[in-house]
């Protein structure tokens, strides 16, 4: 079934009128594709979908969850983690506390990757970890910290690259056992993050479009990776403003590998590779 941009506008408007979700400023291409998928999965046409959204709040919630799921992995993009390890986190080494916000944390792999790295650097105790996502289902998974093993076998590879090896000195090798941080159960096909990690972060359902800062804290480091690719230019700017306001001076915003700040907010940060430092 082909979805036209009129269909998409109709769908977005219905959602906006009937729920608390406003997808007006989301990037069209990915929404279009996801809308198409929803129509196929639920065997509906546009009028049927719109009627269901109007009449059934639970259904609407489910639809929004389908639309806002994004994938992530442990230590996604090892080179970014190398940078965190060698150039970003050392800046906060002598802080009494380090506040870190994972905005759009999805199923939580990035949160646990960060905690593992902090722990190896002796900085976890001083860190306060905040994590948020719009989607309460993925947030629940994030709290559990249980992931498919076989599907995510690359996790161990990434772990080795970031935690065991030192990219600045290949002769250095720390044989950190996986069991220090997670249990692998090959029969049940799961990787389970250890409790000492899953208990620590504060997870909150949060809408970057309109919720502001829910944590009543300012941050040294905000990670928002592969989230703004789903937003249009004007919404991106609103989000950059939110982050800028809630970072300490010299605090760092880290975006995804292929995301960048365009427009007025670029001048308010100093760029260091993937990282943006608040001026």
């Amino acid at each position, binding site marked *: 079934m082909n979805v036209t941009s009129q269909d998409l506008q109709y769908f977005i408007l219905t959602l906006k009128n009937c729920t608390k979700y406003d997808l007006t400023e989301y*990037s069209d291409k990915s929404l279009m594709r996801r809308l198409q998928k929803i129509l196929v999965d639920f065997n509906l046409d546009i009028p049927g979908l719109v009627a269901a959204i109007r009449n059934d709040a639970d259904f609407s919630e489910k639809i929004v969850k389908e639309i806002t799921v*994004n994938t992530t992995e442990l230590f996604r993009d090892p080179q970014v983690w190398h940078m965190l390890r060698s150039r970003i986190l050392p800046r906060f080494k002598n802080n009494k506390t380090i506040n870190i916000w994972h905005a759009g944390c999805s199923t939580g792999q990035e949160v646990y990757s960060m905690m593992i790295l902090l722990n190896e650097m002796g900085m976890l105790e001083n860190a306060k970890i905040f994590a948020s996502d719009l989607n309460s289902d993925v947030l629940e998974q994030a709290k559990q910290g249980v992931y498919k093993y076989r599907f995510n076998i690359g996790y161990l*590879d990434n772990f080795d690259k970031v935690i065991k090896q030192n990219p600045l000195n290949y002769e250095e090798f720390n044989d950190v056992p996986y069991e220090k941080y997670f249990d692998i159960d090959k029969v049940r096909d799961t990787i389970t993050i250890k409790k000492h990690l899953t208990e620590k972060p504060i997870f909150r359902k949060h809408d970057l479009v309109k919720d502001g800062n829910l944590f009543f804290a300012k941050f040294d480091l905000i990670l928002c990776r592969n989230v703004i*690719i789903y937003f249009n230019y004007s919404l991106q700017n609103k989000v950059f403003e939110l982050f800028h306001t809630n970072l300490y001076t010299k605090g760092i915003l880290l975006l995804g*590998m*292929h995301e*960048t700040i365009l427009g007025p907010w670029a001048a308010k940060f100093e760029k260091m590779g993937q990282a943006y430092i608040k001026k």
Partner: protein
Amino acid sequence: MYKAVIIGGSAGSFQVITRILNSLPPTFPLPVLLSLHRLKHVRSGFVEALSIKSSIPVIEPYDKDQIKPGKAYLAPANYHMFIELGNRIALSTEEPVNHSRPSIDLSFSTAAQVYREKLIGIILSGANKDGAYGLKKIKDFGGLTIVQDPEECQVKTMTEASLKLSKVDHVLSTQEIIRFLQNLKQ
């Protein structure tokens, strides 16, 4: 009269792409969009490898980058690459499609919607069926479709799947694809 060329490839396509990029005139009048599968552990260094012999700049684009003629845009590892209205790149980390991210089908079908009859789609050597549906979409929107001659492909699954799914305009050898693209300059 065309506005863009999009190329999809997987196993066995690296050398073909290299030859194509090497043979394009530096003044090539169109953007070249590359949606190529790569091995999971070879995530960096690919763009550099392609750049060495390319006569036009090869870029791993950022999200929302403007697409410009005479440049090649390589879908970044582990992202889907869409083409948006307004001639911009959009990236996404949605689930892999047919085990692939980037998905050639997604890149091709979004490009088809944007460029319609002004798009040239090319499918090269590869070991799965990704790309066949996307090439059909280009055809449906009136674009021109080309498939590398399966006889010449290191792995012909992808080209054969494409030929099966839609009526392809041309089946060409690498040399013929190169000549075709070189003649696009006016």
